[in-house]
């Protein structure tokens, strides 16, 4: 197969795009797709201060790499979740990536945020799954880290993540979730920043190929808590559809964003209320306390009961 652009020998074949690329042309293709997504969805400008959430995996490191190459002012943010050797190895990859490229990186260690706040500790001391605890903890760290200092928070969600999430939301007709499933989330409170997903139309295969071709040393192993995750079931189903009909995932997400999402957003706007300030941490909350502080209170209560004292 020959490169669609320069006719050299192709190294990658993208069925969804009916195209093949050599290495230099593929890197250019990937960058143009990110540039186009950022421009068409008004994600950020070159003047914005962009905080990039990085996990050590292919998507977030590919995102950080491409944003730097495109000239954005970026700082990395890594959340050390305390998931044994997996977290240590992920952190090493992120730190090495930042060091080799002389990029600013912030590391937030959940173990230092409060007693019992690592993901395994929270999952063990509450009824929440590790993935649910991880989501709540990370969102809070992202929001507090970005508040005041950055204009945009960028995450490495890719096409497969968005397609799996969309499928899950559609299967259960989760109208509120569909209303918020966009590549750009505008802030609903002065303490929130704009959240963007510049890779939302690039597949996992495409981000992995970019990371490989750019020589990015990412953590290949999977989070041990992802075993049996529902998202993987949805991804498998979507990949079977994709194998039979290339381009299905891209059309599913792109056409939802273009044509379907607005109807759900309009419905949500009618019922939307402004957030309050959390009575514990001051961050935006839709109840008296934010979801992070609710989780912390659960952990504190459980720890107090175990220690034989009164529940907090």
């Amino acid at each position, binding site marked *: 197969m020959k490169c669609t652009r320069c006719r050299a020998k*192709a*190294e990658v074949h993208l069925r969804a795009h009916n195209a093949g690329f050599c290495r230099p042309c593929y890197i250019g293709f990937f960058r143009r797709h990110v540039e186009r997504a950022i421009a068409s969805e008004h994600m950020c400008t070159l003047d914005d201060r962009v905080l990039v959430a990085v996990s050590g995996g292919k998507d977030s490191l590919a995102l950080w790499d491409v944003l730097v190459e495109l000239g954005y002012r970026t700082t990395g943010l890594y959340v050390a979740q305390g998931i044994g050797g997996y977290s240590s190895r992920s952190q090493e990859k992120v730190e090495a990536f930042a060091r080799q490229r002389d990029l600013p990186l912030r590391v937030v260690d959940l173990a230092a945020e409060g007693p019992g706040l690592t993901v395994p500790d929270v999952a063990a001391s509450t009824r929440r799954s590790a993935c649910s605890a991880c989501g709540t903890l990370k969102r809070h760290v992202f929001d507090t880290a970005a508040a005041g200092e950055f204009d945009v928070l960028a995450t490495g969600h890719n096409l497969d993540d968005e397609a*799996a*999430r969309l499928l899950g939301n559609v299967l259960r007709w989760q109208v509120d979730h569909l209303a918020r499933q966009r590549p750009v989330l505008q802030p609903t409170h002065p303490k929130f920043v704009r959240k963007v997903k510049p890779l939302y139309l690039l*597949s*996992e295969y495409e981000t992995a190929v970019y990371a*490989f071709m750019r020589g990015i040393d990412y953590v*290949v192993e999977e989070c041990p808590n992802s075993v049996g*995750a529902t998202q993987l079931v949805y*991804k498998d189903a979507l990949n079977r559809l994709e194998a039979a009909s290339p381009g299905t995932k891209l059309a599913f997400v792109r056409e939802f964003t273009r044509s379907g999402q607005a109807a759900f957003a309009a419905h949500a706007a009618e019922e939307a209320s402004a957030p309050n300030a959390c009575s514990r941490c001051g961050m935006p909350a839709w109840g008296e306390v934010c979801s992070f502080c609710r989780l912390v209170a659960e952990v504190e209560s459980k720890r107090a009961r175990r220690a034989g004292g009164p529940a907090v």
Partner: protein
Amino acid sequence: MRVHLHPQGRTVELSGRRPVGRLLVELGVLPGTAMVIRGDVLLLDGEMVEEDDDIEVRAVISGGAT
């Protein structure tokens, strides 16, 4: 050929040469869910893997909470 499967950390030995696409079918890997790497180069489905090759099949699917 020796085929190293990541992230499973498993290696399988297969005899004979075959195209990448057939190798992936034998391994039960769906198209677009893994990179096939020889040395520092990616291989396309139509390319031939030889008897004495060392190949990495690296899955690209990651997941967690929806």
